[in-house]
């Protein structure tokens, strides 16, 4: 156990706060998989609706009653393939989709006052058990000789690349990082994609063939948009969100203040969770997925007090009710209606955060009430959102692509303002920043590219 005999004001940050066995439990699947019996029972609860509303609510349009029926008949390979036909990342989506606001929210069982079919867990069951020892279920169409550059190897880029390869094109993925997967590899909570799932899924996707991968190769640094346009028949941009929004408050640069996404990335890449230093008292600032994820993972690394502070109410939080509840059952305290005024420290290291209670004025605008309070902290995580970095798109000073709301502007097929360039996923304006939406964007763009290349 990590101990510390520090003075009152010095930070209590240490690794190895837990027994080794606890780490294994804390970072294993948060939701255990179904077994054959529970899967069959759950599958048989599904009514096999006609023109099923759950299917409409799935951003990738998976034939949900279709695959559930196959689980019910023990045709697990058929079920897995039915899922993958629409969503090649069906495995990670089964684990990280907020189903409570997607397919499961639309399930007709809700209208009956029953719990919805647990579509996510059934999808996972099919994906986990349907493909064992099977060859890759898709084959490539006759080669077209066309070459497509996919920039960014996250869910959007991977989905696009796989579909393009399937359609017979030659694909090259340019990925700035050392691993493919995007936020599946570096961002999504460890206990959602436990046991290296992201990497295993990437390997599965690559089995289709026809996809060359250039790791450690960044657009804007190692290659340029103009260069790619000259060399390839089409380009897909799946760049994600490269920057973290700043708090713009005093003390943000003190030691012990982190970007949540960076710290999560180090959790995700950790060989040994027991070596990760974590504070005893943690403050998380933000109201989305990322805030929940860092708060829970900090707790699971052994932090004693984790307080998540959000400036509005539970309703306004972009993390779903289900996620907020998950954080609370993990021992995270959520404080609503508060915003940080300044972060204070001793010897350049954070010791506390001064907050102000907030409220709405008569016009419904968020305002400070002037009432302050302090939360002591050894570590502070900023999780108030990511933003798109447009620099790689620039040719000298000018962005070559039109932007909208600070992200790339693209139409419903993913076409950008620049001919021959498509984009999708988080880097495009208009979505909810979900894995499953990025997969759909990549898939749709692949078909749009295919149509153009075949003209």
């Amino acid at each position, binding site marked *: 156990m990590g101990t510390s005999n520090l003075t009152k004001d010095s930070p209590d940050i240490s690794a190895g706060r837990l027994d080794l066995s606890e780490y294994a439990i804390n970072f294993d699947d948060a939701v255990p998989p179904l077994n054959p019996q529970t899967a*069959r*029972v759950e599958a*048989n609860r599904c*009514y*096999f*609706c*006609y*023109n*099923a*509303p759950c299917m409409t609510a799935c951003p990738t349009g998976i034939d949900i009653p279709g695959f559930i029926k196959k689980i*019910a008949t023990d045709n697990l390979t058929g079920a897995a393939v039915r899922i993958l036909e629409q969503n090649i990342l069906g495995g990670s989506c089964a684990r990280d989709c907020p189903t409570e606001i997607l397919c499961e929210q639309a399930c*007709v*069982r809700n*209208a*009956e006052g029953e719990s919805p079919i647990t579509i996510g867990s059934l999808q996972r069951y099919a994906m986990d058990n349907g493909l064992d020892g099977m060859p890759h279920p898709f084959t490539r169409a006759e080669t077209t000789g066309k070459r497509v550059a996919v920039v960014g190897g996250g869910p959007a880029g991977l989905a696009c690349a796989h579909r393009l390869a399937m359609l017979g094109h030659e694909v090259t993925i340019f990925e700035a990082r050392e691993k493919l997967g995007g936020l599946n590899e570096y961002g999504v909570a460890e206990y959602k994609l436990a046991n290296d799932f992201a990497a295993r899924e990437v390997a599965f996707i690559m089995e289709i063939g026809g996809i060359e991968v250039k790791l450690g190769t960044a657009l804007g640094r190692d290659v340029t948009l103009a260069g790619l346009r000259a060399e390839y028949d089409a380009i897909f941009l799946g760049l994600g969100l490269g920057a973290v929004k700043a708090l713009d408050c005093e003390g943000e640069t003190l030691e012990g203040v982190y970007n949540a996404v960076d710290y999560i990335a180090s959790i995700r890449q950790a060989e040994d969770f027991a070596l990760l230093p974590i504070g005893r008292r943690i403050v998380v600032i933000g109201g989305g997925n990322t805030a929940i994820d860092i708060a829970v993972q900090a707790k699971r690394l052994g932090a004693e007090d984790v307080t998540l502070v959000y400036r509005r109410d539970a309703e306004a939080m972009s993390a779903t009710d289900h996620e907020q509840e998950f954080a609370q059952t993990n021992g995270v305290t959520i404080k609503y209606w508060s915003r940080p005024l300044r972060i204070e420290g001793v010897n350049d290291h954070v010791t506390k955060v001064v907050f102000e209670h907030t409220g709405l004025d008569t016009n419904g605008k968020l305002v400070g009430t002037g009432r302050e309070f302090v939360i002591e902290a050894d570590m502070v995580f900023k999780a108030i959102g990511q933003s798109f970095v447009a620099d790689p798109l620039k040719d000298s000073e000018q962005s070559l692509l039109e932007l909208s709301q600070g992200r790339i502007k693209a139409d419903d097929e993913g076409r950008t303002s620049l001919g021959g360039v498509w984009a999708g996923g988080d880097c495009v304006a208009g979505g909810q920043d979900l894995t499953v939406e990025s997969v759909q964007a990549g898939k749709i763009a692949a078909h749009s590219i295919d149509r153009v290349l075949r003209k």
Partner: protein
Amino acid sequence: MADISSIFAGIKSPNPFWLASAPPTDKAYNVVRAYKAGWGGVVWKTLGEDPHVVNVSSRYGAYSYKGNRVAGFNNIELITDRPLDVNLREIKEVKRDWPGRALVVSLMVPCTEESWKSILARVENTGADGIELNFGCPHGMSERGMGAAVGQVPEYVEMVTRWCKQYSRMPVIVKLTPNVTNILGSARAAVRGGADAVSLINTINSIMSIDLDAMAPTPVVDGKGTHGGYCGPAVKPIAMHMVAEISRDPECAGIPISGIGGIETWRDAAEFGALGCGTMQVCTAAMHYGFHIVDDMIDGLKRWMDAKGYATIEDFRGKAVPNVTDWQYLNLNFKTIANINQDLCIKCGLCHIACEDTSHQSIASLLEDGTRKYEVIEEECVGCNLCAHVCPVESCITMNPVDNGLPYLNWTQHPNNPMRKQAAE
């Protein structure tokens, strides 16, 4: 509370729930436990001549439907595999200790007068309340010229029944096999032979499932399987049809009927009662859940009777029989139309697709302000009931009678019937 005691073919029991002749009644140990749990009577597992039979392993198959483990059940077991003496001794003791409960002994011996005569005397000596002739076992015994092999030939049924009446003072219940095209053949034969009652149904010839790896019927016995006897909830509809046929047959009029086949709840029992049964026998449900299921059967039946104002079983027994008729007498002018309760509807679309693909295209699938809506097209609906059955929400679709002002008209009177009877002038 209602009085559910019963006197069936002269045999008294405190309630009409009997355990059917089967493993639950195989020996004193089980039967005593059953009595303690409240069962009104038992039909002892079928006795035969020594040397006793031997059984295989395994013996049971189950039909699981959508996660429901035992929607149907089957077995390839034979009659008792214990020596006759042992059984008779236990029967005598149990009857002595439990005089208030019914104890009927099921019998199956070779089809010779001598065999029947000799066993009857020994059974009578135990003090048992009656005998049930097992003419129904569809496997293992019929190959030896017993069980269903006898039950399928009305002449044999009549002959054996007559012997039993001749050589015994005990009430004789003839247990009928459903593995015939018309149950009345054997039922009438039993009546002609002097039976005091009939009981039905025994199990139905069946193959439960094929093990697609072993490529053999289940249960697989060392690589091979065989047909067995089907029972459990799935056979109840078949059993009730056969019971009803006997109940409304003039030649069988008045014969007491002990209903068997898929009875699991008081409601099942009430339905068999409404079709004329005086006692109800249970096997699979007890094998599935244990003897204590009889508690709710007794309690539920009494409460239902109280709610309906039936003081005794005789008050409702057979009440549905006059309403079981032949198709040709149904009113062709009676019309119902499906009605969807929009407040209950969960918009699953099952009614629409069922009617659209396989019935009369009478349920419209609409989109109103982006919400799904299903609506009956009344002019097209033929009142077939399909939608009401596929709708997963109870009472969401109801079939409402429509007053079309037309008089009763059945097939025998219908203009489309070339053989119609002309109305008397």
